């Protein structure tokens, strides 16, 4: 068996159905350990996040506000998965897949709540008040397994070049070439220069870019989606009905037994509900660790909210556009079906391309930070500039050609990040529970020494 076949096999395993079940099981475990926080404290989650967006940062260590940290995390998660990915889930599993996506996302809220909480709790503080955190730190400091933390950091630092860089630049270059006839080399050069300027400013500049760009692009996409939904207003009711009706109906697959298609539907929906928001992969925790907060649980709320916005709000809008337009019923490639669904309004296609390019750009920036933090964990502060330089060069090169093997390999690394992270979430569930209880008892936070 050659290397590519090995990579394909590992990819099939780390992104497969069995792994989805592990994600779900750990999400459910954390839901129980946190006393069903995403349901029982939903009002608090909203008040502490969306209700506090305009507030200044709290005191304490850390360099950016909780909102900025969340925008960096959302910059990475919101992307192709929320648009093309959701369309693919509908094509694979039918409208009912969306219901299962919601269920998985609700479970994922507890997972990301735990990740963000642990990231702040176990982060490392430096003398200048700056911090560094993420799964590598909570694995090393919380579990006492530095080798496993280092393994996570290796996976993240390498994955950043593929999933975070080449894949995104390719997506931007593709969109620019198709809609605006700009050659990929120019797009690559532009992406490289902009990334270099942003990364040079460190986490503060990344945060400033993310806090401006991410809400704008989300708003832009939602306005675009609402515009299409207005045109298909009569289709919204039936679309919602079809989601609920087909979620529980036993369907027969093509030539298969009754139930096979139902399983495919659940797989498609749950897969989207898990992977579009990255809950369980641990990547977002690296951003959440940077927040200036008085208590880790307060940042945990932002983690839960991040999943809510990503997988409940944005994905639902995409699903409603695709379902209400009826384009999905004709079948086809996900990107084409998505384009046809948005095709009802004048210049929707170029606007959609612009939205996708923005999604990809913010992912590019956020993953640069994840990769850099992971590399710094492994090799120390001196690696930051070489890593940034390599990332910028890759952003330029990424637009020029196809890097199939690199992308597959980075997919593997991205999927493998989940293993040490999920082990940590499972074993540190008690710490999350204790911190949550402490917060809701009004106790102050005592960071570990």
């Amino acid at each position, binding site marked *: 068996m050659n290397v590519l076949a090995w990579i394909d096999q590992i990819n099939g395993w780390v992104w497969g159905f069995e792994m989805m079940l592990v994600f779900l099981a750990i999400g459910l475990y954390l839901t129980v350990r946190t006393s069903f926080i995403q349901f029982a404290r939903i009002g608090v989650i909203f008040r502490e996040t969306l209700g506090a967006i305009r*507030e*200044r940062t*709290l005191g304490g260590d850390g360099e950016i506000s909780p909102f900025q940290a969340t925008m960096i995390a959302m910059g990475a998660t919101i992307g192709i998965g929320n648009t093309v990915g959701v369309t693919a889930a509908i094509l694979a599993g039918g409208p009912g897949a969306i219901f299962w996506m919601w269920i998985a996302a609700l479970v994922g809220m507890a997972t990301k709540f735990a990740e963000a909480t642990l990231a702040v709790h176990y982060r490392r503080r430096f003398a200048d008040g700056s911090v560094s955190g993420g799964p590598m730190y909570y694995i090393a400091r919380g579990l006492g397994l530095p080798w496993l933390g280092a393994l996570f950091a290796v996976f993240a630092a390498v994955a950043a070049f593929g999933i975070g860089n080449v894949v995104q630049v390719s997506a931007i270059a593709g969109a620019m070439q198709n809609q605006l006839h700009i050659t990929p080399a120019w797009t690559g050069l532009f992406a490289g220069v902009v990334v270099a300027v942003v990364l040079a400013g460190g986490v503060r500049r990344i945060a400033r870019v993310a806090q401006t760009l991410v809400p704008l692009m989300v708003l832009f996409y939602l306005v675009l989606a609402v515009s299409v939904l207005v045109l298909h207003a009569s289709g919204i009711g039936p679309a919602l009905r079809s989601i609920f009706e087909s979620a529980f109906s036993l369907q027969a697959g093509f030539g298969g037994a009754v139930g096979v298609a139902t399983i495919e539907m659940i797989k498609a929906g749950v897969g989207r509900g898990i992977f579009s928001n990255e809950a369980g992969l641990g990547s977002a925790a690296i951003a959440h660790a940077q927040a200036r907060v008085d208590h880790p649980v307060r940042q945990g709320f932002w983690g839960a909210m991040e999943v809510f916005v990503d997988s409940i709000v944005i994905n639902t809008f995409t699903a409603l556009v695709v379902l209400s337009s009826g384009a999905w019923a004709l079948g086809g490639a996900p990107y084409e079906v998505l384009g046809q669904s948005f095709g009802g309004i004048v210049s929707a296609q170029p606007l959609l391309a612009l939205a996708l390019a923005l999604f990809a750009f913010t992912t590019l920036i956020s993953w640069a930070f994840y990769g850099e933090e992971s590399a710094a964990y492994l090799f120390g502060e001196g690696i930051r500039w070489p890593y940034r330089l390599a990332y910028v060069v890759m952003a330029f090169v990424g637009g020029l050609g196809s890097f199939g093997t690199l992308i597959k390999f980075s997919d593997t690394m991205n999927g493998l990040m989940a293993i040490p992270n999920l082990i940590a979430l499972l074993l540190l569930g008690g710490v999350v529970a204790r911190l949550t209880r402490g*917060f*809701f*008892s009004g106790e102050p936070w005592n960071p570990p020494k």
Partner: protein
Amino acid sequence: MLKGNLTEFPLGTLLQTLAAAGRRGALLLSPPWLEGRVVLKEGRLYAAQAGAREGWPALELLAGLQRAPFVFDDAQTLPETPNLNLPLETALARLLAVSDRWARLEHLPGDWQVMLTLTRKSGELKLTPVMLQVLGLVEGRTVARILEEAQASPIEVAEALDHLMGQGVLQLRLHGEMKAETLVALSFYGRETGVAYVDEAQYREWRKSLPAPFGVRIRSPRGRESVFEVRPRADIPGRVMLHDKDLRNLRAGRGVKLEVRPELQP
């Protein structure tokens, strides 16, 4: 010209550095309530003045300053006759001993502009002659003036004031209400209502100006107000942390700017 504040350079260290460098001139100290001057000449502490005090008592008084801007001016005209004229090592050893005594005071505020008043506390208390002297000076005078005007040495007067405050015989006299701070509301959860948490630094600042126990009166933008027990908490500068229910009772929410005024509890 050397400038700074005693919070960064304590007086003893400052004088030692200046004298060791052979500097000649006057160290001028200017807290808002006192004018102080220490003259250095030929490696000796030549003269000192603090308000009405001169010589060693002046230096003793200046040793009690926790914060004060200072300037070392080597162009000043120096006095012809010394009122101190102590060799450096002797002066510094005595200064260190006095500074230790000042550091042990627990109740005397660092701000000597405040006035003290007698409480209505009854009971027996053994008074020393210095305490009697101090009690005779308290009404209508600031702490700084008492320290300057009493016949006993400044450190003895300060110790007497501290002891009397500790025994509850004397307390701070507040000039009307304390200044209100505008703090942003932050919520906490749990069973404990009626408590307001403020940042540790804010609490310490209030604590210096107010004798315990004190609370805070919080007023919301909608005009609702309530009194809370106040406690310090780390890492919440510019914030006041209230229980979610208390916030709702004030018709306020997280992020709302509240007027927070410390006040003595009855």
